[in-house]
């Protein structure tokens, strides 16, 4: 079974430029998560999707961040414009449904560097 796929793996941009990350979850997984992981820290949830619906985006900085999951499968996370402080690893995860017991499976992440 293929795992969670993310692209690109690495991205270097200048501040004020836009950037987008793509995630393909495990087949059949209805719940999709985007996390931010700063160096030396644990992941922090940005947004959670149940199918197409964003059910928890309270931690997403909506002035510059946006996300979509149009057909309930793939998802895109966008930052526009990027700031120096956005440099981090962006992780995507999926689980089979939203129950608390379900295990989340993580992709390899996209390492963003903003210069």
């Amino acid at each position: 079974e293929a795992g969670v796929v993310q692209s690109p793996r690495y991205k270097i941009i200048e501040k004020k430029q836009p950037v987008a990350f793509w995630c393909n979850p495990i087949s059949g997984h209805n719940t999709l998560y985007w996390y931010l992981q700063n160096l030396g820290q644990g992941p922090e949830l940005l947004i959670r999707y149940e199918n197409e619906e964003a059910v928890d985006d309270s931690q997403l900085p909506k002035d510059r961040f946006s996300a979509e999951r149009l057909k309930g499968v793939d998802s895109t996370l966008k930052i526009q414009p990027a700031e120096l402080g956005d440099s981090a690893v962006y992780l995507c995860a999926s689980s089979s449904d939203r129950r608390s017991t379900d295990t989340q499976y993580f992709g390899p992440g996209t390492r963003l560097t903003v210069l």
Partner: protein
Amino acid sequence: AQSVAQPEDQVNVAEGNPLTVKCTYSVSGNPYLFWYVQYPNRGLQFLLKYITGDNLVKGSYGFEAEFNKSQTSFHLKKPSALVSDSALYFCAVRDPRYSSASKIIFGSGTRLSIRP
């Protein structure tokens, strides 16, 4: 509010010795607890979880964890460490009372270093 703490930034163990990575949590009620491992430039990999039942949970790669409700701890253990166990380990907790809106909270991570 739920929270999780990993009191040690780094744990150093000789190969073949037992290892313990500590985790304590704060949740009002019975928690769901998880351990994940992260290798360099990789995403997090699931090791094991505690939901209910037996306090000793066995997981991948020979790891196990013991849920201790009185001490609000969920320490990760392995009887005999391997050099390949060297990685970053994250403990996580979820409050099951709010299943529709609950989210998993991760600790800050513990770097495990196994010397040959």
